Each structure stands twice: as C-alpha cells, then as structure tokens.
C-alpha cells in the first residue's frame, strides 16, 4: 500500500502568534504536515524563546526573521500571505491592525486567506481591550470557580486556558479550511479565549438557572457517580483515582477490596444511596489502597473492570513507558544538539504515518527557505534586506 501524505501537506500557515495558545495551534497543524512559517524579530522576541516550552510550542515549524515595523518588512509579510492559506495571530485586540496587517489588507494580498485572531476577551464588546493572561482568564470566566472546595480561596488553576485554546484554534482553522475547500471563500475568525473557557462549564451555568443557587465546587467528588474520589496509597503523595460508573463496577470493587458482603447491602445498592454513605465506603477503600502503590492499586482495579488511575505529576507522566510504546513520545534531535523525548499528537489515522515530529527551529534558521525558495528573492536582494535591517 502506498503511503499517504500527511493530512495537511500542501497547506501553508503563516504563524504570527507568540507565547502559548497561537503557537500551540500552529504546532498541531505543523505536525499534521502543514508548512508552518513562524515569523519573529529579535526586537520583540517570542517571550517563550529559550524556555523548554518553546521547544514543544514550535515543533516542526520553519522560523524566519523579519522586521515588521518597516514598510519593506510589511511588504515581505504580505508576499508570504499571498502564498499562504492561513494566518494565525494572538496579539491583544487591535495590535495586528496597527501593524498594518488587518484582514482587509491581507485580503488584498490573498482574497481567500483564512485569518484567525485570538485575544483574551475577543475583538468586539466593552471589555475587548482588557489586558489578559490565561491564568487570570481562568478566574474571569468562572472556570476556576467551579473547581476546588467550598468556603476556601479560589484555586490557582494550573496552566489550562492556553493549551485548550491551542487545540480549539487548530480545530477552528481546520473547519475554515474545509469550508474553503467547498466554497472557495476564506474567513476572518474572531476568537475569545475567555469564551473558550466559559463554554466548557455548561453544567454550572445550567444548574444555576434551574436551581437559582450557585453550586458549590466538590473537589474530586461527583454529582452522579459514587464512589468517585482519590485514595491515599502507600508511597509519599501517592493517590489512586477511582470512579465507579455502574452497579456492576460497584460489585467488582466490593470484591477487589474484600467487602463482598456489601454487594447485597441495600444501603449501597445505587449511586445515590452510596453517596449518602460515602464516609463509610471511603474509609474501607482507603484501608485497602494504603497497602498498595498507586500503579499497583490501578492494575488490580483495572483487571477487575473498574475505572482507576494513579494521580501523577508531570515527572511521572513523562516516565510512563506506554507513551513511548504507542509512539506519542518520540526522540528528536533538538536545536542544542541533544537527543530529547518530545510529545506528538494524540490520535492515529489507521496505519498512516502518525505525524511530522521535528525539533523547534531557532530564529532565522529558515531565512533561505522562505526568502529564496518560497518568495524567489535573489541572494543579492536578501543581503540588501539584511543591510537595511529588514531581515537579520
């Protein structure tokens, strides 16, 4: 059987974004085979430059240096847009237009361009100019408010907004590419990071409308499934998460922890009554889990057909050999010359090659590829642009 090209081979993306969300979207597209050109300048470098995370936010891209603050630089950017399918940017609202790269001006260079603009609160509305970081948006959007425990300070929230938006921007770009393939038309997409987070908490929004009270956050517990919690294991800060989602799983759990007599106990017959007796149930489970390591408990429970898993930090996720066995993590020679294990994409298309996993570039690494090969400039023209501080 012939090997198929990657899904996005032949699609070119101009990545004008920086920090996390926009670069992550373009990273996913690049790994699916799109030719992603990241543009940057050394006057305002991508703030993640030099950090380990830059290496995963920019895998498989080309990186050219360009000074967009001078007219000739802007002209070159438009020449790249003319031969691209997609532009993605995530500056604060209004910045890209002030740079001279509004959707209208891009359309002059390429009438069917797809431009995706992501900002903290979107590009219309009274708060559109609010200065935002993802961590703060998690508070603004109600996302953090549904998590944690009652009567405590809001939780800190972790790094959630930016990677989520990275995947959602990628999804939106694919939708626009499909639409263009059918209709021939491009699109301008106004994307709000804040709305992306608020869109994922429908339960809380609907609960409030139905009950007229704000539902308290419930830590690891659940409205419907029971038992549903994390349980202390033998090692330091080791926990196993257990979620019983049916009566069959409850019976298996009773057998696994040596509480067969509970199977016929009417007090524990259904999830609702088990919730009412959670303290008694949870202490019996803990007595059992305390004898075991987190993976050990997981394996016993899983072989009995019960959803369970260790609560891991990133160090232990990274060590999970399964991520290497499935090919999700693979070895790549990074820009510092070392061989390092880097993540890929979380899906496979049948037996097709998984993805393009190449190291993140350094600024200017692909100047020749972009300016000579794609735009067709001569070496002489490029050196003049270098002298004029347009390219560096």
């Amino acid at each position, binding site marked *: 059987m012939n090997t198929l090209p990657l899904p996005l081979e032949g699609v070119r993306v101009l990545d004008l974004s920086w920090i996390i969300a926009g670069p992550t979207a373009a990273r996913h597209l690049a790994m699916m085979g799109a030719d992603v050109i990241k543009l940057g300048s050394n006057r305002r470098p991508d703030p993640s430059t030099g950090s*380990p995370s830059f290496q995963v936010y920019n895998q498989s891209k080309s990186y050219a240096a360009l000074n967009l603050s001078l007219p000739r630089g802007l002209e070159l950017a438009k020449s790249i847009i003319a031969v691209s399918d997609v532009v993605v940017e995530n500056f604060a609202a209004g910045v890209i237009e002030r740079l001279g790269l509004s959707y209208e001006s891009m359309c002059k260079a390429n009438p069917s361009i797809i431009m995706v603009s992501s900002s903290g609160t979107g590009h219309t509305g009274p708060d559109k100019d*609010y200065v935002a970081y993802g961590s703060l948006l998690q508070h*603004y959007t109600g996302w953090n408010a549904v998590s944690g425990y009652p009567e405590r300070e809001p939780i800190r929230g972790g790094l959630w907004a930016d990677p989520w938006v990275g995947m959602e921007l990628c999804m939106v770009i694919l939708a626009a590419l499909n639409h263009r393939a059918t209709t021939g*038309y491009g699109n*301008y997409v106004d994307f709000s990071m804040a709305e992306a987070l608020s869109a994922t908490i429908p339960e809380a*929004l609907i609960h409030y*409308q139905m009950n007229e009270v704000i539902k308290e956050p419930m830590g690891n517990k659940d409205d419907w499934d029971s038992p549903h919690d994390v349980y202390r294991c033998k090692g330091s800060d080791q926990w196993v998460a257990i979620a019983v989602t049916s009566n069959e799983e409850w019976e298996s759990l009773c057998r696994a922890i040596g509480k067969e007599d509970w199977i016929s106990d009417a007090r524990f017959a259904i999830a609702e009554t088990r919730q009412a007796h959670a303290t008694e149930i949870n202490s019996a489970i803990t007595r059992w889990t305390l004898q075991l390591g987190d993976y050990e408990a997981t394996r016993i429970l899983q072989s009995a057909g019960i959803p369970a898993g260790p*609560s891991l930090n990133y160090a232990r996720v990274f060590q999970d050999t399964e991520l290497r066995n499935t090919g999700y993590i693979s070895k790549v020679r990074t820009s510092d010359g070392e061989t390092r294990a880097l993540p890929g994409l*979380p*899906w496979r298309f049948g037996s097709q090659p998984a993805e393009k996993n190449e190291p993140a570039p350094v600024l200017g690494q692909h100047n020749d590829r972009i300016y000579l090969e794609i735009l067709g400039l001569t070496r002489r023209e490029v050196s003049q642009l270098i002298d004029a501080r347009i390219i560096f």
Partner: protein
Amino acid sequence: MDCDQSANRYVRCVVVVELMSGVKVLDVGQRISAPYCAKTLANMGAEVIKVEPLEGDEARRMGPFPPGDRHPEKSGIFLALNANKLGVTLDLTSNVGKDAFCKLAQKADVIVENLPFRHMENLGLGFADIKAINPGIIFTSITPFGDRSANKDWKATDLTLFHMSGNAHELLGPVADPDTEPPIRAGGHQAEFVVGLTAVTATLAALFQRRMTGNGVHVDLSSYEALVTQGIAGLASETYGVPRQARDLSKSTGGSVTAVGGILPCNDGYVAISPREDAQWERWLEVIGRPDWSTDEKFATRSSRQSNLVELWRLLGKWSCQHSKHDIARWGQTQRIPCFAVNTISDLLQNEHLIAREFFVEIDHPIAGNLRYPGVPYRFSNATLPLSKFPAPMLGEHNAQILGKAQ
C-alpha cells in the same frame, strides 16, 4: 448573493453558508466526549443524528436537574451537549437495529463513538464493516488509551484522566501537607471536554484529507494522550530537566500568590491581578494610592517583591477588601494592568461583555423549558453558525422521520 454589512464588519459579498453544510454525522456517543465532538460539528451546520440505546444516553441521568426532578429530558449536560442534533433510538445488538444503523451509516460522512473498546467492532459495526458499505467513511473512535496501547482494555473517566495526565497536581497550587490534601480534578467534566475537542480536530483533519484522497479512515483517538497534550509544557520541562513547582508549600516558590500575581480578597469576592512587569507594578501603585512603595526597597523590584511576598500581599489585601472586585478590575484595566474579577456563575450570566458579544444562546425545550446555554468562542465572517437551530432531541423523537426514511 448576500451582502450584510451590518451584522459583521468583516462580511464581504459572498454566498454565506454554514461551515460544515452538507456534512452528515452519526453520533454514537455516551456521556460527554463523543457527544461534545458531534455537537461542535452540529454548531457548524453539519446534520447530526444522535443514535441512543433504547434506555437513552447516560448523560440523561447525570444532571444538573431542577430541584428534586431527575427527569431524563431535563438533564442540563444532556440538553447542552445535544442541542441542534436529531435523535433516534436503536438497539444495536438486534438485527433490526444493526440494519437501520447500516442504512444511516451508508449516507454518513462521519461516525463518532466513545463506546467501550472494540464494542462497535464486536457488534459487526466497526470501521471495517462500515467501510465495506461506505468507502469514504470517517470513523472516529474515542477510547481511553487508544488502539496501540498495552492498556487498551483499561477503563477511564473524567476523574481518572484528569489525574493520570498530570493536570491534577498543579490545579490546586501548593498545599501545606500533600499527604492529607490530595490533588483534585477541575469542576464539571474538563477532561471529557478536552477529549471531545481533540476528536473534532482529528475528525476535521480526516475530512480535509478525504477531499484529496477520497478515502475514509479510522481515527484512533487516545483520551489519555489528549489530556497529556494539555500538559506538553510539563513534558518539555521534564525532557530539559527543569523541575516543576513542588506540590509541597514548604518546598515551593510561592503559594497561591507570587511576585507575578495572585488573588486578593474584596468586599464582594476576589480579584485576580498580575502586575508582573515593573512598569505594570508602577501603574498598580497608582491604582492603590501607594506611589511611595516604588522607592520602598522591600517592594521596588520583582525579586524584592518576591522576597517580601507575605507582607506585600497582607498589605494589598488590607486595601482590596475595602473595595468591590468589579471596581478594582476596572481601575486596574484602565491602567492596562492584567486584572480581572473572579466571577461567580451568576456574575457570568450577567456579564455585559458576554451579553454584548451574544455569547449565550437561548433555546426553548418542550419539557425542560427555556434556558441560556454557553455558545462558542468563535465568529466567522463568511459563515453562519446555527447555534440555536433546535433543542436537544427527546428520546426517540425523530425515529419515525429518520428511521422511516432509512428503512
């Protein structure tokens, strides 16, 4: 030709059609992930038929519900995830059910399912079976660990995925005693939503590829790897040997606050601030009326603020608790300081910015009534999004209409 300049400043004179117009999707999903994937495609104009077992999607029993009323047509999560879909019931273990399903599958572009591993295959309705009758089918299987994993038979839920993938360890921030305060999952079903979103992405990539090749494909999606992808920055830290923030407060560089930012108490809740750059800090001192602190050596630089964190946040809290979170957020943003009210769910539904952007979508349902649902974070200039086409289907609502046609 349509040329509506008033609705959107970017609309050009084109034939405005829905993004996924003409795409036919079968949603064989339970609970959250696959239904959310199909719902996103429905929001973009795909024709989605939800195939439920005779007893209905489990999400019908999950809630939230009105007080004391666990009616299967009133489950909030079911209503939210299944609006804009048509609904049929089929017993896929019976020959009649299988035949009806195959007739629907012959006309479909996409099937998305999250049933137990190989369940569809064992019913004779797997990718190979459907491909034999519909060579262009995109068959998206959401499983806990993917087809290639040694753990492929393991089960997973929102809780176990959130914990296994590293996300739970950083959610709470550092705690005083990690052995008594466990890592927690986020509220709602965040892990399942990530899986659903990832499934839409993969499905749209497969659809795009099919336009070139004409061939269908089996999309094998690992829920666990989707959640790990939320934490690629964490994996990068590991591969470069840079330690992450410890969960133990005594070993960490800061609790819920650092020099970079944190949460302040107000007279009506909390405000989250992040005046991390020196220039932002200078302007923040104007907001709180303490410009004299800029020359106070305890607070003059980011590193001195970090060293005197406890005192600094005590003083800031003394000021902030006299004011409203909404006032502080506005004062801060006027000075271009990243600063937001910690909104409650009730704040959110009244938020003028979200209302001005028409974020919430109102849909009336014959049994559950009129509710405001969260919409989507994107607006397309050259395509419409039919977000409120119709309410979630009642159990078997479109059996006669659709199965009549299929039979």
